[in-house]
């Protein structure tokens, strides 16, 4: 196809091709503002979340809001499904060992009572339950079929070389409750990041939403909520008008998570994207 420019037009556009650099002081001011904004992403993300229905003015946005709400539901359902269909953590969980540690691997929700009960008795021995979340994950992954695991004490040693120091650092004020709270922290952190992304998206602040997605990806490249993160990213890109990127990511999402509960939503979003 002929895409040669008429020489007269080319000559007329020449001054634009040679446009000089913008005033350095002006750029410097923009750069400073920019750095401040980037350095404090939480300042942008944290403020009181407005209700998702805050500004449904644009027609595209209202669809997006709807999607966001549905996404929240999808997160819960999807995570629950993941826990059931995923790497089957439950058989590893049985009662003998620091059960909450094992449960923390894949349980998407707080998993309330069962894990706590077995831990209540050991109040007599040294406050061993102070196993850090990181260790908790390691322990669970390192012992895939360890139902008849060694006694509690020995496993504690094996998993936690720093065990003696930990109790002194953290006063075991509530030894029975601490362990049950801890295994949730990584997942909570993941969930918190994505929540920030969703809140930002609901505010139509898709830049902050994508920042949260990126932060999640850096912190949890293969996190338990990676699927939700990837879906949120597609939504953020679409909201920002990055149609090509949204399409590409959306298609990658559908390929990567063919069984996803969010598949229908992403599918619909892709269909709505302008060509």
């Amino acid at each position: 196809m002929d895409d040669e420019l008429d020489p007269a037009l080319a000559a007329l556009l020449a001054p634009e091709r040679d446009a000089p650099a913008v005033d350095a002081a002006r750029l410097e001011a923009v750069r400073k503002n920019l750095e401040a904004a980037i350095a404090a992403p939480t300042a942008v993300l944290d403020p009181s979340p407005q209700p998702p229905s805050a500004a449904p003015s644009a027609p595209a946005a209202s669809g997006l809001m709807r999607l966001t709400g549905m996404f929240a539901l999808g997160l819960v359902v999807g995570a629950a499904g993941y826990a059931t269909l995923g790497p089957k953590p439950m058989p590893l969980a049985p009662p003998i060992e620091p059960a909450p540690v094992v449960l923390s691997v894949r349980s998407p929700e707080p998993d309330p009572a069962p894990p706590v009960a077995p831990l209540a008795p050991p109040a007599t021995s040294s406050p061993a339950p102070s196993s850090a979340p990181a260790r908790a994950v390691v322990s669970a992954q390192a012992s895939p079929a360890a139902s008849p695991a060694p006694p509690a004490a020995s496993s504690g040693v094996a998993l936690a070389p720093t065990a003696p120091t930990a109790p002194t650092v953290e006063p075991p004020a509530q030894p029975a409750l601490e362990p049950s709270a801890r295994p949730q922290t990584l997942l909570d952190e993941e969930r918190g990041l994505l929540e920030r992304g969703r809140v930002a998206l609901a505010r139509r602040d898709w830049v902050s939403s994508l920042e949260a997605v990126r932060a999640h990806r850096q912190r949890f490249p293969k996190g338990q909520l990676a699927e939700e993160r990837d879906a949120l990213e597609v939504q953020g890109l679409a909201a920002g008008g990055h149609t090509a990127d949204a399409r590409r990511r959306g298609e990658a999402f559908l390929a990567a998570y063919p069984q996803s509960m969010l598949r229908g939503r992403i599918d619909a979003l892709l269909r709505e994207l302008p060509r």
Partner: protein
Amino acid sequence: MDFRRIFDEHASYVFHSLARLGVPNHHRDDLVQEVFMTVHALFEDYDQSRPFRPWVFAIAYRVCLRHRRKTGRNRELLVESDAPSTEAGPHEALEGAEARARVREALANVEVHRRAVLILKDIDGQSIPEIAHALGIPLNTAYSRLRLARADLAAALTAKPLTAGGAA
């Protein structure tokens, strides 16, 4: 990513691109910031085997479209003239600024989606396939927009002739 270097290398380009897309001078600083916030957020998605400028232009273009929607400004006012650059001599700078102001005035008559293609092709010198990729449009659409943009521009120039040297 050396974000500072990216900003230093491309900030002027983004400024000019926004001006060509019809963003008023008093909004440009904010929008340049928004563009680079987006660059920062999306940099992972940038395919480094492709040229950077069409990619960053596409971001500027979308930021500009959103700005237009927000301000309800689908038809542009005449382009304000920018302050002449201090880097050239005063005479050349003034002349250059005037010439650019006229070009931008003519560009304002070109529908913005078409204009984006024209800017990338006829000012930035990008290839049509690259433009189509950056803007996320089919190749034929890119060609078609370019053709129509040039026709719009030519019509604007016929209505209000310009000369290449900048003198009206």
